[in-house]
């Protein structure tokens, strides 16, 4: 059996970024889409749509992380390089799954996905590198919290396992340390905006 990072989200609730995000934290880490997925009654079509859009998102995230890596402090770079390597595996994994499920990865971006990746990549160029680490922490910690709250059973158990494993949590802890070295209003604002986009992304996944 795989070890799991069950309920990992709770272990990050002491982070000042999460505390100051207030109600946004819950909105970004819980969703009707996830409830249906965990309960086993999510229509395959809705899951495929999410898979296709999450793949687009991961492609955008790769650009974001690459620019952040280039602009980051030397002390942050090892963690960011590790994150980029994992993201490359993630994209290959998505490609394999999409092929198996007959999902086209050429579908156009949903507006919610487009707004999120535009925001990330714009910010990667225009915001301070310290705040960018806070943004990346926001992206990853909300994803970990959302998935690790679910029981890995049913048709989507493999997906739940994947995004709630202890190595992922370890990476998110490293990002947290880097982000918390410098917690200021600008970083918090961007962290909050990430959570808003996360919320909209989950909502998009549920709509038809």
């Amino acid at each position, binding site marked *: 059996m795989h070890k799991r990072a069950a309920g990992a989200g709770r272990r990050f609730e002491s982070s000042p970024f999460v505390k100051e995000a207030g109600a946004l934290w819950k909105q970004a880490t819980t969703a009707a889409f996830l409830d249906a997925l965990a309960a086993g009654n999510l229509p395959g079509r809705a899951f495929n749509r999410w898979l296709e859009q999450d793949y687009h998102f991961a492609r955008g995230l790769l*650009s974001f992380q690459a620019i952040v890596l280039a602009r980051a402090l030397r002390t942050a770079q090892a963690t960011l390089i590790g994150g980029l390597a994992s993201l490359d595996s993630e994209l290959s994994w998505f490609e394999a799954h999409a092929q198996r499920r007959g999902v086209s990865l050429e579908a156009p971006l949903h*507006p919610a996905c*487009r*707004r999120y*990746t*535009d*925001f990330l*990549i*714009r*910010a990667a*160029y*225009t915001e301070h590198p310290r705040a960018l680490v806070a943004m990346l922490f926001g992206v990853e910690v909300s994803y970990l919290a959302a998935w690790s709250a679910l029981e890995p059973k049913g048709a989507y158990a493999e997906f739940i396992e994947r995004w709630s494993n202890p190595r992922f949590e370890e990476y998110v802890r490293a990002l947290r340390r880097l982000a918390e070295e410098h917690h200021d209003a600008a970083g918090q604002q961007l962290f909050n905006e990430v959570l808003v986009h996360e919320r909209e992304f989950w909502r998009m996944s549920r709509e038809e």
Partner: protein
Amino acid sequence: MGQPLHAVLWDRAADLVERCVRHPFVEGLGDGTLAEEVFKRYVAQDAYFLRAYLSAYALCAARTRDLEAAALLVDLQQGTLEELDLHAGYARRLQIDLAGVRPYRAAAAYCDFLLRTAWHETLDRTLAAMTPCMRLYFHLGTELARRNGGGGRYGDWVRTYSGEEFGRLVGRLESLLDRVAEDTPAVEDCYLYAMRCEHDFFTAPLEGGP
């Protein structure tokens, strides 16, 4: 043979353009019935957007080695600064706080798209993302001036965007687009998405929320 690229793209955007022309915000602007509160919100959002637009022109200028294009981009930046002056005038007259503007979702999405394209993508795509704003405003200005004359409550807005000088600037931007860009799916996508953003930008101040 065939139409220049800017005309091809404008034709493909015809539905979106029509929706902008008939947009309640635009109609209210034309006949003067638009509530002043809504106009104030719009001015604040537009001033926020124009700062991003100004940066995007600067990034275009940094990407070209063609001196004629560089000169045009300087003129376009100058034009944008004059628009910002117009907004500062509205702000003084109508008491709008332009310093602490928080963008609505529509404005944030448009600015993020524009700046992501300008920083991260190529010159042709960036110009395709920037042209709809200029062409649409000239079209709306001209249309509203024809419909209602240049008078009315928001007459100076209509006169600014229907003016010959503004029209010439639009034409020069479109010829640069024709020279630099080809009809690719990415160029079309940038153009049409920008037009969609324009439409949503008019809706946001009516709704008044983020």
